[in-house]
């Protein structure tokens, strides 16, 4: 299984290399692809509010005009939080005392659009908006158990960023972005509730 996994990664890497050849050999003309590592900071939820770098973002777009591109995106992120031992009143006469580790896993996907300025320059800033669905798993790990809730919600995320192409003759560069996201996911785990998901974060990766 491990060999198959490495072969898959190798094959995907080969496709990626082909895609980042000089602009004249680009696999998808008039388009862009971003692959980013991201740092996500959850805001205002009592399940897992610690920033983490356990996530990535993938998106691509087709330039319907020289400035405007639309396409699909998918990203994922996990935020964790450790809780020392505490007693929870679970209702109906039961109570639980345990140390816990919480995990908030978010997987939004959908459509993205962006407006890009200075398309011919090395530094190409843009403003974008992502819309779609968000799957989120809310988990509490304690003792040898994992208790979790699956949730779905509507996803919206404005974003500003820039693609930086050091060598104009090559369609490969660095991508940086700052985003905020909101999702309507609601759910409960033990005595912890999540009512909507708010996040902000940064993305750093490649653009081609």
């Amino acid at each position, binding site marked *: 299984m491990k060999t198959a996994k490495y072969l898959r990664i190798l094959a995907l890497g080969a496709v990626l290399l082909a895609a980042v050849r000089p602009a004249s050999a680009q696999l998808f003309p008039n388009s862009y692809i971003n692959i980013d590592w991201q740092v996500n900071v959850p805001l205002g939820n009592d399940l897992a509010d610690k920033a983490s770098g356990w996530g990535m973002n993938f998106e691509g777009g087709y330039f319907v005009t020289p400035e405007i591109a639309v396409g699909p995106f998918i990203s994922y992120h996990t935020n964790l939080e450790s809780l020392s031992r505490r007693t929870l009143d679970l209702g109906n006469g*039961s109570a*639980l*005392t345990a*140390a816990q580790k919480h995990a908030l896993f978010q997987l939004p996907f959908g459509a993205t659009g962006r407006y890009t300025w200075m398309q011919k320059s090395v530094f190409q800033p843009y403003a974008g908006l992502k819309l779609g669905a968000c799957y989120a798993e809310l988990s509490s790990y304690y003792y040898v158990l994992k208790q979790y809730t699956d949730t779905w919600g509507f996803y919206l995320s404005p974003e500003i960023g820039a693609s930086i192409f050091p060598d104009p003759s090559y369609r490969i560069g660095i991508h940086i972005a700052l985003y905020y996201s909101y999702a309507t996911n609601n759910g409960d785990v033990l005595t912890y509730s999540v009512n909507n998901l708010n996040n902000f974060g940064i993305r750093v990766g490649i653009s081609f």
Partner: protein
Amino acid sequence: MTVKKLHYLAIALFALAAGACQKEPSTSGLNEDYLVYTDHDTATDFAAFETYFLPDSILVIGSRDKSEYWKDADALQIVNTVAERLDAAGYTRTAEVDTADLGIQLSYVRQRTYFVGYDQPYWWWYYPYYWSPGYWGDWLGWHYPYRVYYGYTAGSLLIEMLNLDGGDTTSRTLPIVWDSFIGGLLTSSTEVNLQRTTAAVKQAFAQSPYLYQAQ
């Protein structure tokens, strides 16, 4: 940054993406602490009970064919901690089962792993080394008058409180009106296990204030 370096960065990012998606937290630290879960029958008036009977040994749920009982000084310390908490709650220990309102069962799960479900009313038949219902009188078994879902895993202590006056004469079963599941007692140190167990027993009573209605 050269284009060649960017190629490497692209491959590294893609390998990272393909190799990991959902991050699971490390749970190793969770074994360094105990877990206490308690539940009870909310329809039971605990103030109505005055006396309890507590055996001086702990039944061991292990892998042997015969029932095993844990009776050494460590077991006695655990039993005495339970008795001390029950006394503090206002109940009186009796030496005779027949005159007790409550029966207290202590079981230590040494090796087996079980999961108990409310949806299986005859679950106790799957526990060959469990407390015999006949220990408490002419009974065939016991039942939970409330919903229960929990697992028995190695290194666990179970404390169950039976209402000896509330038996169902039709089914000949006794109700368990309070139960406590304590996990995380299987470290390599016997001393640590004992300290953790007595602390967890005290916690089980501390998070069950309704038991103190007998005062």
